[in-house]
């Protein structure tokens, strides 16, 4: 297996891009990535996307983006794993480079949720859950996560305020991110008094709906210096699945797929959670942030609120969580989110993150999740010199 490097990245601001189509958004992120480095060729494109079939009447997204970039006839196809699509695409791209099948692979995610906003977007996003045994009963994606949150507060007695405080931290981080959809600060009262979406989840517990595209370019580590002066190595990467149905889970307070993917990625990278400086975790809802930080090994179970209060999830603490603002503030262009995370960690490790830079970061981790923890991807990157 060849070792794999990320030699470039690009992204658009996450936003309601009324003036840009699916393909134009992807083109913008890809152009940024291609212009940063000296790449004579791209051998393949792996593109992640969840909702284009529903919201943009478009399948065959690989061809769409290869055509947009004038790169036909290269191999190009889409990978879908709900909100975990980006992480799945990264794992696919990694495998293609690592195996020697291709040398330079573009991994990109694109999502255009505002082409059909409102009920249709909610319905399309809900398809991450079980259509026959969850959505059938009127469950929405937010309400399934609300089941976890209600249970979490019931079992651990965690105060409601803790979740609001996490949203406040995310918005503080995101306010420094030029690519964030919601780059403004909020306070606890705003979060606590926002409207109910699915009790106990309120508006400010949720990631917003927006459009965006992100791209990273991979090649074997041994040739990375040919293309770029600065790059990161993907030291470990893994995926895992869990039952589609929440009812089949033994434990509602832990998402087993995160534990499995994280353990395998840590093992492959030969590190422990204590070695990680920065993470981009999948905080679709504030509750998934709490559970994910515990499952990734950064926090004892049920102690999320205590550590959050102590500043453990800020630079200088246990681990700097979501310097981008996370899904909450950077935004959540679902199928693209996992690629945003990889691009952001790369940007941090290369010390190109401007105002959101976390100083002296050597090792970073991405955690990307589809469904309610039913499909998870974890990757670990290290600055290569």
């Amino acid at each position, binding site marked *: 297996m060849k070792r794999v490097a990320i030699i470039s990245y690009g992204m658009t601001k996450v936003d309601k891009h009324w003036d840009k189509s699916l393909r134009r958004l992807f083109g913008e992120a890809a152009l940024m990535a291609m212009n940063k480095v000296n790449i004579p060729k791209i051998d393949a494109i792996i593109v992640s996307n969840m909702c284009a079939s529903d919201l943009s009447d478009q399948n065959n997204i690989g061809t769409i983006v290869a055509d947009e970039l004038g790169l036909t006839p290269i191999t190009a196809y889409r990978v879908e794993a709900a909100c975990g699509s980006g992480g799945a695409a990264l794992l696919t791209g990694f495998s293609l480079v690592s195996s020697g099948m291709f040398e330079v692979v573009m991994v990109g995610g694109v999502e255009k949720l505002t082409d059909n906003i409102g009920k249709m977007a909610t319905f399309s996003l809900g398809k991450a859950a*079980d259509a026959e045994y969850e959505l*059938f*009963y*009127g469950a929405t994606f937010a309400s399934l996560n609300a*089941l976890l949150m209600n*249970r979490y507060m019931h079992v651990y007695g965690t105060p409601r305020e803790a979740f609001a405080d996490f949203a406040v931290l995310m918005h503080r981080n995101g306010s420094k991110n030029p690519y964030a959809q919601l780059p403004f600060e909020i306070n606890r009262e705003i979060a606590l008094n926002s409207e109910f979406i699915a009790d106990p989840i309120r508006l400010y517990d949720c990631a917003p709906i927006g459009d965006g595209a992100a791209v990273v370019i991979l090649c074997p580590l041994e040739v990375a210096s040919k293309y770029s002066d600065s790059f990161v190595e993907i030291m470990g990467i893994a995926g895992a699945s869990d039952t589609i149905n*929440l*009812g089949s889970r033994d434990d*509602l307070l832990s998402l087993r797929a995160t534990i499995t993917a994280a353990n395998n990625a840590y093992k492959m990278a030969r590190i422990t959670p204590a070695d990680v400086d920065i993470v981009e975790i999948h905080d679709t809802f504030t509750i998934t942030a709490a559970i994910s930080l515990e499952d990734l090994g950064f926090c004892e179970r049920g102690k999320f609120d205590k550590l959050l209060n102590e500043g453990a999830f800020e630079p200088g603490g246990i681990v700097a969580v979501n310097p981008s603002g996370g899904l909450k503030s950077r935004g959540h262009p679902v199928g693209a989110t996992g690629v945003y995370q990889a691009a952001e960690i790369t940007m941090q490790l290369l010390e190109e993150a401007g105002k959101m830079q976390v100083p002296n970061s050597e090792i970073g981790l991405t955690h990307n999740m589809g469904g309610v923890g039913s499909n998870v991807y974890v990757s670990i990157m290290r600055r290569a010199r």
Partner: protein
Amino acid sequence: MSVPRYWREMPYRIRLEARKCKLCNYVNYPPRTKCYKCGASEFEKYYLPQRGILLSFSIIRNPPTGFEKTTPYVIGLVELEDGTKLLTQITDVDIDEIKIGMELEQTFRRISEDGDSGIIQYGIKFRPKYLKF
């Protein structure tokens, strides 16, 4: 929802039929081809218990299409008497009175409808045990 898609799930949604593993006795609901716990593929037909307790719930205020008439409504995760868990709606209860741990029993209800000329979908909801009326 197409008629065949609704019709073929009726045994599992309306009779709450599950597959009990002949090797390890784990109750697979919804049914699977291979057992979730042990991977075996021999099952016997098994009907889920009619009572259970509420493990967690959420109140839906932004409904998907087809559920507007009953909004707000409650979805809950119910742990049945044999330990099997299922997700469904909780009904016949004041939103303020719903509590984790409350005892529930199953009831046959309309779940949603597909517009004016589509099919009406039925299934099992759960309600508080021993209703007072």
